[in-house]
C-alpha cells in the first residue's frame, strides 16, 4: 500500500518572522464542527461538558482546557478540538484537515491585523477568549485572541498561502513605518 506523508496546511510557509511579528502554525489533532439539532443546544452542551469538560461557548467566545477547545464558529455552529460523540444531539463533521490555523504574535500585532480585518481587535474591545468570524482581506476567517499580543487566525486550508502572504505584506508595511 502506498504510504502517504502527512503535510500540514502551512508546511513550507511557516514559521516566519517580520520585525517584531512572529507567525507560526497551530496544529490541532482533531477539529470537529458541531451544529446542534433544533432544540438540542442545551443537551449538546451538557454532553460535551461530560466528555471534554467544556460546554458550548457563547456567540463570539472560545473556551479551552488542557484536553480540548470549543470555538464558536457562527450561527448555531461550534468547532471542537477533540473527539466527541453526539449522536442524536448534533450534526458532527470531521474538519480536522480542513483548516489552516496560524498564530500571529508580537508587539504591534493589532496594527498588522488592522490593515486587513474590518473589526476592532484592540484589547479594550476584543479581549482574551473573544473570537469572531469576519474577513481578512477577501478571505472569510475566524480570529481568536489567545494572548495580550497574540491571535489565532483560522482560514480554509486551500487559502493558507494567501493567508500567510497577506499577513507577511501587512507586517512588512507596519515594520517599514
Amino acid at each position: 500500500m502506498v504510504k502517504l506523508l502527512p503535510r500540514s496546511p502551512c508546511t513550507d510557509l511557516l514559521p516566519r518572522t517580520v520585525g517584531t511579528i512572529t507567525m507560526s502554525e497551530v496544529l490541532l489533532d482533531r477539529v470537529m464542527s458541531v451544529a446542534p439539532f433544533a432544540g438540542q443546544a442545551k443537551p449538546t452542551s451538557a454532553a460535551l461538558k461530560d466528555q471534554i469538560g467544556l460546554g458550548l461557548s457563547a456567540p463570539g467566545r472560545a473556551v479551552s482546557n488542557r484536553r480540548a477547545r470549543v470555538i464558536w464558529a457562527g450561527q448555531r455552529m461550534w468547532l471542537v478540538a477533540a473527539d466527541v460523540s453526539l449522536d442524536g444531539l448534533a450534526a458532527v463533521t470531521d474538519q480536522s484537515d480542513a483548516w489552516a490555523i496560524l498564530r500571529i504574535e508580537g508587539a504591534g500585532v493589532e496594527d498588522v491585523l488592522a490593515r486587513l480585518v474590518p473589526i476592532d481587535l484592540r484589547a479594550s474591545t476584543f479581549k482574551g477568549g473573544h473570537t469572531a468570524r469576519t474577513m481578512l482581506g477577501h478571505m472569510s476567517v475566524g480570529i481568536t485572541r489567545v494572548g495580550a499580543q497574540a491571535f489565532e487566525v483560522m482560514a480554509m486550508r486551500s487559502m493558507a498561502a494567501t493567508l500567510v502572504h497577506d499577513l507577511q505584506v501587512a507586517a512588512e508595511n507596519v515594520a517599514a513605518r
Partner: protein
Amino acid sequence: MRITCPNCGERDRREFYYQGDALALTRPAPDAGPHAWDDYLHNRDNPAGDTRDLWFHEAGCGAWIVVSRNTVTHAIDDTHLAATVKR
C-alpha cells in the same frame, strides 16, 4: 453603512449579502392558489421609506438577518435573526 448582526455586533456592510424583501419568511401554503403564488414570486413593492429586508452575514457568522431600515433616511431601526422569527 454598518449593520448590527445579533450574533456578531456592528459590522461593515461588505460582510453581508443582500437578498431583498423579507417576504421569504411568509411563504404561502402549497395549496394557496396561483394568485397567492404569483404575488409571492413576482410582485414587490418599492417603497420610499420603511422596508424589511433579508441580509445574509456571509463573511461572518452565516446567519440570515431581518433588517428593518428606511430607504429615505438610510437609518436602520432594528435587526434580528431570521431563525427566531415566528412563522
